[in-house]
């Protein structure tokens, strides 16, 4: 497999009058063709900003990509001019946003919104673009696709709107689909439908997928590899099973221990991560997770750890000084939550 996307030392900062918010501060990862990858983390960890940076959608001012490289099929997107970006955005990389209510234009019909990018990017006639729009609605499982083309967003339910968003993202046969919290606003039964659809798209059309989510469950069912983010950096990455069975970073361990699970009987107590995420405009020296970490050593206060190989899995890396040595087995941290 070849690398479809390489993100190298990406730094996206936001500048306000008296502070610099380092939303993304040195993120490096890659994605292979046909692969699905998850960026996992809590609000403010920089996962969405990373996606917006790839799409070059960072509002400037206040935001600016201050350093790094984003190579898509070998081409550096950060060096590309606006017209190149416009042809890549939508054409090669499709994006699905979190809020299907606000990311569709309420005064344009679905037909108009779907055929717009097809006309723009594929240079086809209007009627051909409309045919393509109908085809897309069928693809994403909207019953009676053709009849619903003239409808407006408010005539669709939340799940259906998210399907329309996916159809729009897929309209020009992109190589990469970025889904930013695609199911957060949806009910569980609808969430399952949308995730199944994204998986179908990945398998049948060979589209690479980046799913951005805070939900570890979503990740466990639908991706090949995981990047865990905290305070603008990737703190751990690896194959799906390695992350869940052999988590190495204390933050990853903490996340896994703090979520209640459907398959665990009542009685066990959750082990929360104490404290709150740090202020991104005043990040502490050393490791950003140090103040919430139960394993912190002196070195954590002075030197920021970088990712290094940990565990036994191939490509399993963590940015932690104590991972693999002092942090012990996962049972040690998870405590009661693991005795199933």
């Amino acid at each position, binding site marked *: 497999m070849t690398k479809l996307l390489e993100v190298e030392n990406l730094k996206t900062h936001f500048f306000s009058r008296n502070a610099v918010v380092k939303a993304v501060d040195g993120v490096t990862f890659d994605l292979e063709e046909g692969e699905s990858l998850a960026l996992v983390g809590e609000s403010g960890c920089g996962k969405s900003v990373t996606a917006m940076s790839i799409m070059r959608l960072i509002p400037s001012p206040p935001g600016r990509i201050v350093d790094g490289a984003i190579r898509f099929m070998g081409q550096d997107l950060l060096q590309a001019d606006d017209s190149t970006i416009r042809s890549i955005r939508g054409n090669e990389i499709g994006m699905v946003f979190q809020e299907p209510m606000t990311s569709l234009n309420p005064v344009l019909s679905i037909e108009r919104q779907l055929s717009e990018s097809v006309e723009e990017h594929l240079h086809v006639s209007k009627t051909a673009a409309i045919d393509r729009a109908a085809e897309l609605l069928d693809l994403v499982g909207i019953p009676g696709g053709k009849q619903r083309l003239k409808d407006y967003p408010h005539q669709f339910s939340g799940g259906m709107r998210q399907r329309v968003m996916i159809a729009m993202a897929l309209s020009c046969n992109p190589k990469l689909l970025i889904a930013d919290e695609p199911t957060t606003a949806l009910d*569980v039964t609808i969430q*399952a439908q949308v*995730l*199944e659809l994204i998986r179908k798209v990945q398998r049948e059309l060979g589209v690479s997928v980046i799913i951005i989510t805070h939900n570890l*469950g979503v*990740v466990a069912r639908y991706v090949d590899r995981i990047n865990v983010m905290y305070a603008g950096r990737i703190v751990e990455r690896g194959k799906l099973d390695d992350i869940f069975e052999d988590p190495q970073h204390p933050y990853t361990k903490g996340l896994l221990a703090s979520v209640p699970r459907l398959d*665990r*009987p009542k009685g*066990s107590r959750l082990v929360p991560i104490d404290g*709150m995420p740090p202020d991104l405009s005043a990040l502490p020296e050393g490791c950003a997770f140090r103040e919430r970490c139960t394993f912190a050593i002196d070195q954590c206060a002075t030197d920021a750890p970088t990712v290094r190989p940990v565990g036994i899995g191939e490509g399993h890396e963590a940015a932690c000084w104590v991972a693999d040595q002092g942090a012990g087995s996962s049972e040690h941290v998870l405590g009661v939550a693991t005795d199933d």
Partner: protein
Amino acid sequence: MTDAVIEQPQALVRVSNVQKYFPVTAGLILPRKVGDVRAVDGISFTINRGETLGLVGESGSGKSTLGRCIVQLLKQTEGQIQFDGVELSDLGGNDLRAMRRRINMIFQDPYSSLSPRLTAGKIIGEPIEIHKLAASAAERRERVEELLRIVGLNPYMADRYPHEFSGGQRQRIGIARAIAAEPEFIVADEPVSALDVSIQAQVINLLQDLQERFNLTYLLIAHDLSVVRHISDRVAVMYLGKLMEIAPCDDLYEEPQHPYTKALLSAVPVPDPKVERAREHVVLQGDIPSPIAPPSGCVFHTRCPIAVRECAETVPPLQEVAPGHLTACLRVGPNAI
């Protein structure tokens, strides 16, 4: 039609055949009623003292409306809601206010449920003032500081305004306010769904600690079935205003009987790839129908994978299929078709 209510002598809250309809009107100048949104349509259950009943369902299932009826923020259209033997809808004025001391509510959104113009201390102190639980301002202040400590905040934070707190801290303020008047029963409507996962666990643990410490009874309304399993003793599943299934917590999760409960549970992803690969996934087709024109017969029949013709004709009664385990499905139980 009345469903079987599980009669329990120690029931603190008794909900019997409660309906809440919202009128739908048409016409701008002379509005006339053209129908009803049947948000809650004949729900019965009881909650025992010291127990946590989890109430789950998707958006539009009526779970929040029912919660609001139980605390009498909304008056039910039909049916009885008894608290400690007293019918709540009969109360008014001072009697209702006195009752409100014993029943409280925690809201979902910690951002919009706190007044931005009041300090945390004032927000938490208001119930103490209204119910005259403190003899002096100094005593009230002392009580507020104690409450802040109980919910894990610093007493000096009493003088801060809501915008100075994070989401998790705001939810703690909401919880402090809810327990300020020493209630017996708390309706918590999605108390953790607006919070980040690492903060969720802190608030869930706090709710459990408070229950133990003050012998609280909870009605926990949530769409997150994992959270509900973690803290509930019994769980009720709602769909389109109706009760589909109610059972002791582990029974419901291990042995779900109703096809809707089964689908709902299978749709919740488990954060463990091994478990995920082994689980059966039922993906329901379609969306939840409109509560203005709910389907005939069993309201779930339009999406049910095992529906038969009778399901569109007959409203299934709640039947006991195991001790304390009731389900409303024609195709489940001893007389299943």
